């Protein structure tokens, strides 16, 4: 497992798009620059969507892990 010190955690299990990205955006808005959010989703669409959203917003995707139907993202606020 990755050992990023997440400053905030968000569980989007069971939610379908647009909710995982929408909730991630809101959670990231509350973070200060350099802080890390750990987000967990069960929607496979999140993989490409979070990667594309990060590119769009300038935030950084430290790592994404796909395991047992769960997708875990570590996101660093720009």
């Amino acid at each position, binding site marked *: 497992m990755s050992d990023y010190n997440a400053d905030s955690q968000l569980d989007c299990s069971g939610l379908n*798009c*647009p*909710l995982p990205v929408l909730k991630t*955006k809101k959670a990231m808005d509350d973070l200060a620059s350099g802080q890390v959010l750990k987000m967990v989703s069960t929607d496979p669409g999140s993989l*490409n*969507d979070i990667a594309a*959203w990060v590119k*769009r917003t300038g935030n950084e995707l430290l790592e994404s892990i796909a395991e047992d139907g769960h997708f875990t993202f570590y996101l660093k606020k720009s």
Partner: protein
Amino acid sequence: MSTTPDSFTADKLFSDLSGKVDFHLLDVRNEDDFDCFRVEGPFPIQMSNIPYFDFMEEQDTSVSKVPKNMPIKIVCAKEGSAQYVAEILASQGFSDVSFLSGGIKLWGELLTPVRVNSKNDKYDLYQFIRPGKGCLSYGVIYGGEMAIIDPSRNLHFYRNFAETHGAVIAEVIETHSHADHLSGGLELCFSQETEMMAHENDFPDSPFNYRRLEDGETKTLCKDGPEMTLFHTPGHTEGSITCLIDGRYLITGDTLFIISAGRPDLGGKAEKWVYDLYETLLDKYTQYPGDAEVLPAHYVTWKEADESGKFAAPLKRLWNENPIFSLSSENEFVQFIIDNMRESPEVYIDIKKVNRGLVQVTEQEADIMDLGKNECAASHYDSD
């Protein structure tokens, strides 16, 4: 006042695309997914891609990119994001906004039937077009039975279609082991709903029962329906077969398409299979009845469709017009195939295993594997 956006079905989207209804198609998936696979139809589509998260980040700028004064149809992966954007547009004064029910997945599974033979014939022959994939499957109906050739995974459609025509699915024929899409034949076979027939070279290690088809064999479809003669035509795969139905219709599988032929390099043995394909096309195919209508398992572009919207052409016309038949020597043929080779999608390896019954996948995994346009043709043409 804004109105609540309605949804539309994949079927309705296809009929609007076919009927040249004026609208703008807004795809709100991320750019990579859009680049991989998008909606196609018989005519050019007015379409744009603005990811749904752009509407979250910069709503006004994103909304301003959407054409005004025309109906907007929105598609996304599953439905939720399209509905989300539809509601934003409706609240911004767009009066005619709707979203695809079930998302691009249902578009990818959509099958749409076209009658191939005359209504006066004693049997019905249908071509089932899968616009989301470029796949073609076939149904022969006679005496309360339906035989399906190369069924897609959407068995719900075939069962309904059979029922509305007073028939049950009685036989399934696989022209070969498919690499580009998940076959519905497997489920029919496992559920013992019907008997599957195929050439054993393509299913040597499959754990299910199927009837092995022989080169030159003749059988009657749907009990005493039309007669079908089978030819072993290796090249695209080792066990590819071609079926001549009623002496008039040549079901070519992935061996011959209207403007191309099936690539021999999806099985990892292109060096051998390319020579099989040469012999199949330039030797065997030049001896089949020229008046027979070629009915392939794929199309590359909608330009191949005839005026009735189906993908069919007399074999003798293809002898003259399909570039494959102008390659007169073996060397020229091999060079053409090599020049047109390109990487095959990685997922094809897994799809083949599933289709042979060697690996089982969940419904969700199957949905992901089965999405996207086929890459089966030896020569690549722009789909625009």
